[in-house]
């Protein structure tokens, strides 16, 4: 063992990553009296300095298009300039590849709090049936836990972070501990009525945003730009809601710009240390620990395990089953937009509200037999008088053409009349979608990179056709005009990874020969190794993953603390 290791103290728990999983582990372990060290691959977050909340586009000379005009050329590879910082599908010096025929976009966020600084704050519980997909339809794999196992942790998570919603008694959208949410915007009220005619439910959104002061955090002030980050922490982010408060206890050691390379094990097969690169000094560091929690985001966690090779673990750590990296999924997303004449000429008013949508459509055909695709989706809604941004009037420019006062009139008439329905559906894990180490390529830290394989199946294509039909019916039911879209169905699905709900790849299960983790997200093979992000997910239900990441991590943290107390870890 090198000198570097012998001279350093042994930390209780080292957590790799500070997003929803790492933040929750930090909060709960510290509450239970443990000391934690967080390795975060990006810089420290300073909300007052880093968040562009309330900024007008004219406050920057490039108006949000980037000084080099990247907005006009980069397409989906570029992240909104005004969003909370330090995340992208492309990170300088940290590449990844897609296998021929695959197009997977891998979002990474390198900053304290990770993606929770910018995400949509949608907070949906999985349904009871979501945990038993194989038992229901013979596809995929059942989770080793049931809804009842996680329900108490959903309660704890919602009570702590604060979630708006309403009790509806719908099986596909289990009720939780809710604060009162805001009323529907005008276009949302139209959608609710159009849905009602079609027998489709449309209920108040569940969002991790505060309608009243809660746990020392101020109430939302309805500026509608949650993705920019919230200086008053009125929405959930692991940085502001979990890590910063936990740091005040003195039991958190946060190390920023620390890029984990691999986990080091001893002859007994336990993890003894984490090797990482200090990005600032470009130097190798190692930190000893009693237990390690990998919470680096699904594919990054796989990458760390797969790169932790030794003679004892030739396939990487916790990978005796060969399942690490396998069964990668992302949400099935498809969109339909309509121009709604009923909204033309309406008195313009402040429609910012909370984040993107105040009502949503939970999956409604979960009990319907003989559908031509398995599982389901929920519908998110876009519309209203948004803050003008570059590109916001591009479609009206294309349709109206011309110039001068006529163009201005067309833009004014069109403003606020577009309504978009966005489907968020369940992708079934398949053998063609996975990540693996591309041993020919390393990043700028010398760490072997990931290569992605990704393929949608007939199930997803059929689901998208169902989305397109139903979205059109809902929009036309409120008089909306939907432009004809003759693209093949495969082109109407958002590319894998683009929704940033990539998950799976280090899955839980009762059988160590087919899964990497047990029901507490503890490695079957390495007893002091835990995973706490979306990597352990066995399926990717049509509910945004963050609330389940938080709840599952909470359960894992309690188990880990108890096992350490008993001396088992």
């Amino acid at each position, binding site marked *: 063992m090198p000198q570097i290791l012998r001279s350093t103290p042994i930390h209780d728990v080292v957590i790799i990553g500070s997003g929803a999983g790492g933040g929750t582990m930090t909060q709960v372990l510290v509450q239970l009296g443990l000391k934690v060290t967080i390795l975060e691959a990006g810089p420290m977050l300073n*909300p007052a300095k880093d968040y562009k909340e309330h900024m007008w586009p004219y406050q920057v000379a490039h108006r949000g298009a980037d000084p080099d005009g990247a907005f006009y050329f980069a397409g989906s590879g570029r992240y909104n300039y005004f969003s909370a910082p330090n995340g992208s599908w492309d990170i300088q010096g940290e590449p990844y590849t897609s296998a021929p025929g695959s197009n997977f976009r891998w979002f990474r966020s390198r900053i304290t709090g990770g993606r929770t600084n910018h995400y949509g704050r949608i907070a949906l519980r999985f349904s009871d049936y979501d945990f038993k997909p194989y038992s229901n339809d013979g596809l995929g794999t059942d989770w080793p836990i049931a809804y009842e196992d996680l329900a108490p942790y959903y309660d704890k998570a919602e009570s702590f972070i604060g979630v708006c919603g309403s009790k509806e008694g719908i099986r596909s959208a289990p009720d939780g501990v809710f604060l009162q949410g805001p009323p529907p915007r005008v*276009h949302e009220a139209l959608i609710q009525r159009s849905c009602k005619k079609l027998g489709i439910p449309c209920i108040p959104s569940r969002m991790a945003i505060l309608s009243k002061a809660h746990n020392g955090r101020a109430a939302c002030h309805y500026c509608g730009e949650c993705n920019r980050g919230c200086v008053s922490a009125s929405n959930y982010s692991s940085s502001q809601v979990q890590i910063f408060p936990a740091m005040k206890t003195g039991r958190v050691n946060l190390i920023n710009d620390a890029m984990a390379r691999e986990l080091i094990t001893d002859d007994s097969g336990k993890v003894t240390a984490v090797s990482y690169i200090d990005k600032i000094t470009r130097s190798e560091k190692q930190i000893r620990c009693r237990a390690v929690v990998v919470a680096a985001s699904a594919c990054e966690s796989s990458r760390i395990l797969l790169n932790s090779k030794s003679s004892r673990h030739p396939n990487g750590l916790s990978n005796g089953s060969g399942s690490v990296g396998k069964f990668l999924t992302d949400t099935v997303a498809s969109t339909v937009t309509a121009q709604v004449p009923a909204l033309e000429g309406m008195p313009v008013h402040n429609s910012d509200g909370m984040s993107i949508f105040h009502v949503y459509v939970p999956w409604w055909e979960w009990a319907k037999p003989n559908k031509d695709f398995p599982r389901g989706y929920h519908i998110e809604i876009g519309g209203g008088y948004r803050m003008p941004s570059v590109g916001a009037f*591009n479609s009206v420019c294309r349709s109206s053409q011309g110039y001068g006062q006529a163009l201005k009139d067309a833009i004014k008439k069109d403003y606020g009349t577009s309504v978009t329905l966005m489907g968020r559906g369940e992708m079934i894990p398949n053998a063609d979608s996975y990540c693996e180490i591309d041993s020919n390529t390393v990043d700028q830290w010398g760490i072997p990179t990931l290569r992605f394989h990704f393929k949608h199946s007939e199930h997803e294509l059929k689901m998208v056709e169902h989305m397109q039909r139903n979205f059109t019916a809902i929009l036309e039911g409120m008089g909306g005009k939907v432009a004809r879209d003759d693209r093949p169905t495969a082109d109407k699905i958002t590319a894998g990874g683009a929704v940033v709900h990539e998950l799976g790849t280090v899955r839980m299960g009762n059988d160590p020969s087919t899964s990497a983790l047990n029901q507490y997200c503890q490695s079957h093979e390495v007893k002091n190794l835990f995973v706490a992000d979306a990597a352990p997910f066995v399926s990717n239900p049509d509910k945004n993953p963050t609330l389940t990441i938080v709840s599952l991590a909470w359960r894992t943290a309690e188990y880990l603390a108890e096992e350490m107390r008993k001396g088992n870890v």
Partner: protein
Amino acid sequence: MLVQIAAAAAAGSIGQAEAQHVHQEVAASKDAVKSATYTPKAFNAHEEKTLRALCERIVPGATQGGAFEYIDLLSSNNGRLAAIYHGGLAWLDHESTQRFQALFVDAKATEQTALLNLIAFRETAASNPGLETGIRFFDWARRMTVDAYYTSAAGIREIGFKGNGALAEFKVPQEAMEYALKRSGLG
């Protein structure tokens, strides 16, 4: 000012009035930023004159809204945009000279209008071979002029955007709701 709002938030005491004050402060500091003279980064004096005139024809008020400076900044950092605008402006002068024996800025207003009417609509390409270059360029100029104008303080005021403020409660005006419900036939 964001520092203040964060500090107030940390103290758990942020009020709607304070937040609104902060928003107004931001708006005021913004208007003060406008500089009197501007030195173009990507375009020469003749190009500047032509582009300013073009932007103003596309969206009246766009020069005040900073459209020229916006296109100039982005073109100075992006070779593809620079080529689009250098080339497009040269095309405009060439076409104007061919038709009116005058550069675009020196042509009569009616002549400028006649030329713009040809390139501002895709349909004209079919009956006017050779205009594709101009039509493509005009698409870019229109798109970016609109972006610049409607993200300026004047453009945001003109479109009527009322948000980016701080509210104690979110409410929808009853008259707006009734207006849309009635017109949609869903009321």
